[in-house]
Each structure stands twice: as structure tokens, then as C-alpha cells.
């Protein structure tokens, strides 16, 4: 992989983020009611609104407002939350790490479980194991997060189960067992849909690899089946698996919005719902940009991993 490729990819990530920032800014500009209405409330008089709009610079042309806003963000100044009277950077920063702890837990668990499941299904194609995994994959991908979450709550946190807390958050550095007991249900909810999808994709990639000529050649050479799988099949199905996982990070980032709301997890998703309900524009803009940036960077990272794993990928 050449340095040129890396620079080009970094540049395209930047370009995507600029486009997203345009889109986010445009959407929040079209939102009914500007920041002045949100600060003063709906009973403010016309004069008060005009005066505040003047102070905030809301009656300047949109492109001047955009460049000022974007310029401030580049200097790590995200503005003030209209509802919480705190700097956006502070509010969003805390929420970001809380979300990251949830998302990373879910992702790592999923990868550890889903990839072996997919490989198992491909190795024992058409068997009961394959059928069971396939069925799980279809049911899993068809359940929206709020349904899974509700069912998990009923069975594992209700009076029937009652083992796990129904919601809330304890930071991992405060009490690790506390964090684990609170993270199981939300991470499990996020994990189910991803696990189902990733297992299914890994199965189909692995099946394609197993049906390929070089696997046949390896078998005809008289290699032991274990060697064929370990040295030839697994490494070649790994790169596509990474590609699938990186696309699924998009689902994960959408999923945390609902899951955090249901389990009262104080992360970006819950903050976003609060900000949307209260029309807290600076917070909405910051979270959207942040999630898009995480998604774009994770895609970049996975492209690099794929290039490193697969010698045929040359850029």
C-alpha cells in the first residue's frame, strides 16, 4: 500500500466530512424557529426576537454563518448548548466516552461470537448447526433494537428474572462489576442484530472460499483438512469479514440512539434525542458530525486493514 493511496483516502474522508457539515448546517438552518426563538421561548415579543437575532448574528447570509460555525469547530469551539447552558464540547465529550464504552463492548463481543459462528456454519453446510445458525441470523436481523430491548428487559430484568438492572450507567473506572452488570442488556441488544448479520455474511464468504479452486488444489495436494482450513481458507475469508464489520458500524451508531434511550445510558444517543426534542441546535450539529466522523474513520481503518490482510489488494 502506497503513501499516495493513504493520502487520497484521508483526503476523501475529509471531503465527506465537509459535505456532511454542509448538510447538517443546512438541515438545522431549515428547522422551524431559529436559535433566538429557542432561547427566549415562544412568548417572546417580535422586538425581543429581532434584537437577539441581531446579537447572535442570525440575520447575516447563511454562508457567513456557515464559515463562522465551521471555523469555530476547527478551533474545537462547538458553541454553547441552548438548553443546558454548558459548552457543547463538555456535554458531548462526556457522552462520547460513555457511548464508546457501550459500542466497543458490543462490537468486541459480536466479533468474538459471530465470526466463529459463521465459519462453523460454512464448514458444516446443510447440517443442523448450519440451519440453526441460519435461523438465528434471519430472526436476529428482523428484530428492531427496541423490540429486542423490550423482550430482554421483560425476561432478564423483570420480576421473572430480576438478575440485571433495567437501565442506568456506572463508569468502568468507578466500579467494573457495576459497569458490566449495566452494560450486558444494552450491549446484548445491539449485539444481536449485528451478530446475526455478521455471522450470515461470514458464512457466505467462507462458503465461496471453500468452493474455490485453490482450496481444491490444497486438498488434492493431500494436505490435512485442518491445514487447508487454517492456512488457506481462514486467512482468505478474513478480509471480506472486516469489510462487513466496518459497514455494520453504521448500524451500530444508529442503534445506540434507540438503545441508550431505552436503557437510560448517558451517551450520545440519549443526548441526541434530548437535543432533538428540545431543538438544541449546537448539540444536534456536534453529535451528527461526530457520528459521521467516527463512521468515516472506521471505514478508512478497515480499508487499511483489508489492504494489509489481502496481498491482492494493491493501490
Amino acid at each position, binding site marked *: 500500500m502506497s503513501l499516495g493511496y493513504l493520502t487520497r483516502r484521508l483526503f476523501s474522508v475529509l471531503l465527506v466530512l465537509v459535505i456532511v457539515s454542509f448538510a447538517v448546517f443546512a438541515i438545522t438552518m431549515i428547522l422551524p424557529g431559529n436559535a433566538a426563538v429557542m432561547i427566549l421561548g415562544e412568548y417572546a415579543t417580535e422586538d425581543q426576537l429581532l434584537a437577539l437575532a441581531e446579537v447572535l448574528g442570525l440575520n447575516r447570509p447563511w454562508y457567513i454563518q456557515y464559515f463562522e460555525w465551521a471555523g469555530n469547530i476547527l478551533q474545537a469551539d462547538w458553541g454553547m448548548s441552548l438548553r443546558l447552558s454548558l459548552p457543547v464540547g463538555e456535554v458531548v465529550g462526556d457522552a462520547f466516552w460513555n457511548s464508546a464504552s457501550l459500542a466497543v463492548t458490543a462490537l468486541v463481543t459480536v466479533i468474538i461470537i459471530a465470526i466463529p459462528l459463521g465459519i462453523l456454519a460454512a464448514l458444516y453446510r446443510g447440517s443442523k448447526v448450519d440451519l440453526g445458525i441460519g435461523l438465528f441470523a434471519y430472526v436476529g436481523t*428482523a428484530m428492531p433494537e427496541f423490540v429486542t430491548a*423490550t423482550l430482554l428487559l421483560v425476561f432478564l430484568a423483570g420480576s421473572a428474572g430480576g438478575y440485571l438492572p433495567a437501565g442506568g450507567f456506572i463508569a468502568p473506572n468507578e466500579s467494573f462489576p457495576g459497569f458490566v452488570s449495566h452494560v450486558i442488556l444494552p450491549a446484548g441488544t445491539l449485539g444481536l442484530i449485528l451478530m446475526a448479520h455478521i455471522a450470515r455474511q461470514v458464512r457466505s464468504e467462507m462458503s465461496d472460499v471453500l468452493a474455490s479452486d485453490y482450496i481444491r488444489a490444497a486438498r488434492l495436494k493431500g494436505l490435512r483438512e485442518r491445514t487447508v482450513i487454517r492456512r488457506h481458507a481462514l486467512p482468505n475469508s478474513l478480509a471480506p469479514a472486516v469489510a462487513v464489520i466496518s459497514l455494520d458500524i453504521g448500524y451500530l451508531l*444508529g442503534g445506540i440512539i434507540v438503545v441508550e434511550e431505552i436503557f437510560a445510558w448517558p451517551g450520545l444517543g440519549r443526548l441526541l434525542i434530548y437535543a432533538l426534542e428540545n431543538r438544541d441546535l449546537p448539540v*444536534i450539529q456536534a453529535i451528527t458530525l461526530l457520528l459521521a466522523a467516527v463512521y468515516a474513520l472506521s471505514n478508512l481503518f478497515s480499508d487499511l486493514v483489508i489492504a494489509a490482510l489481502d496481498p491482492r489488494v494493491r493501490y
Partner: protein
Amino acid sequence: MSDFVRHPAGVAGAILLTIIALAVLFGPLVAPYDPQAFHTTVRLQGPSADHWLGTDQFGRDLLSRLLFGARSTIAFGVGATMISVIAGSLIGVTAGVVGGWIDSVIMRGLDGMLAVPDLLFVLLIVTMLGAGTGEAMLAVSIAFTPGMARISRSSVLSIRTREYVLAAVARGESQRYIILSEVIPNAIGPIIVEGTIRVSFAIMIGATLGFLGMGAQPPSTEWGLMVSEARQFMYRSPWVVAVPGLAIAVAAMGFNLFGDALRDAFDPRRSR
């Protein structure tokens, strides 16, 4: 098509979709009760001879609500996807056929839109438009359009270099004829497959919006809203949240299975 019949996932999907289609078409006609009628003496009850799927917190018959809700839930998913398929293929085919800098500009714009997770995108648009079924449907179709545009573009690009298109060019056919009679009919397969699978996502996002209070509004019988309304009673009677929740899963699964089988039928290289 004979392949399709022997495809177990296809058969399962077709059966599920038939059940769903029957509920959408005839549900309100066969529903045993008025979906909004309160039966105060039988609140939060499990299944019985009178109420096959039990009753909710107001004593409303769950089977009747489910049958009435099929229309709003399924029509939402199919409608939103159809709008995005039409808009997306128009954009994608235009970009693929015209090429050049217009293609580059369109594709970069789509990349930017695709960088925002679907649900987040939908939530932003719904907040802009206001909560409601129509608004939610428009939001989902806008959010799905970039993905559909990308697929139709790549499908057009791969077909443009096929022999039969080159043959048409060599015969001296007009650009218009080539696009309408050679490219589009052959590009439509992947678009239909992707559209079918996306209906299941649209249904799930629509139900999620109903659940969050940003889609269908009470007293609608939309399934996501039913789950949301029954949640405060879920520990007392899990039944009331499980019934609409599983109905959503069955609908989404039907479209998923059917779409997968369609893909295999369209793509002879994929072995089962």
C-alpha cells in the same frame, strides 16, 4: 423460476409475505372487534376464546389492532422504499449514463449522505418536518435514496460494457434506445432485490420512529407505537409488547427471506 420454488428461504419468505399481504388487504374486514373499542372488564388479559391474542391496557382486542395496524406498518415500509427506489434509480442511472464531472459531483454528495447512519439521518429529517406518518415516510425515503442511487449506478456501469450493449452500439442504435431497451431492463434486477430487502429495514425504522413518538401518533394501530404504549405494563403482561413486537419481526423477516431468494434467482453464479 423453478430454482426459486426449490429455495427453502424463498418458500418461507413467500409464505410469510402471503400472510402479511392477506392481513394488509383483508385485515380490517375480518377483525373480530373495533380496534379502538375499550372493553374495561378484560384489560391486559392473555389469549382466550374471546380475544385470541389477548387485550391491551384499555381492554382493546390485540388481534384486531394488529390486523388494522398491518396497513399502516407494511404500507409505510413499501411506500417509503418505492419512493426511494424511484428517486434513487433516476439519480443513479443519470449519473451512470452521463458520467464525467456531473457523475463525480453526484457521487461525492451521495458519499456525504451515506456517511450519516440511516436512523440518525431519518431522525434529523423528521425533526425538521415534524412528527407524523407522512413525514416519517418521506424521511425514510430520503435517507434510503443515496444507497439506491449508488446501487443503480454501479449496476448501470457494469452493464454498459457488456457485449450486448457494445453490439447495440456497433449496430448504430440511438443512445435513447440503448438506455431504455438494453441497459435499464438488465439493471433492474439488482435494484428490485435491494429494494425488497430494504422494505424490511424501512418497516423496522418506521416502527422505531413510532416507538420514539416521532412517527405514527396515537390512537394509530401502527405496531411500533403499540409496543411503545404497552411498555409501562410489560412486566405485568409481557404478552402485550410481545405480540406487536413479533409481528414486526415476522414482516421484516418475510421481506428479507424473499429478497435473498430473489437475489439467488437473479444471480446464477451464486450457488446455494
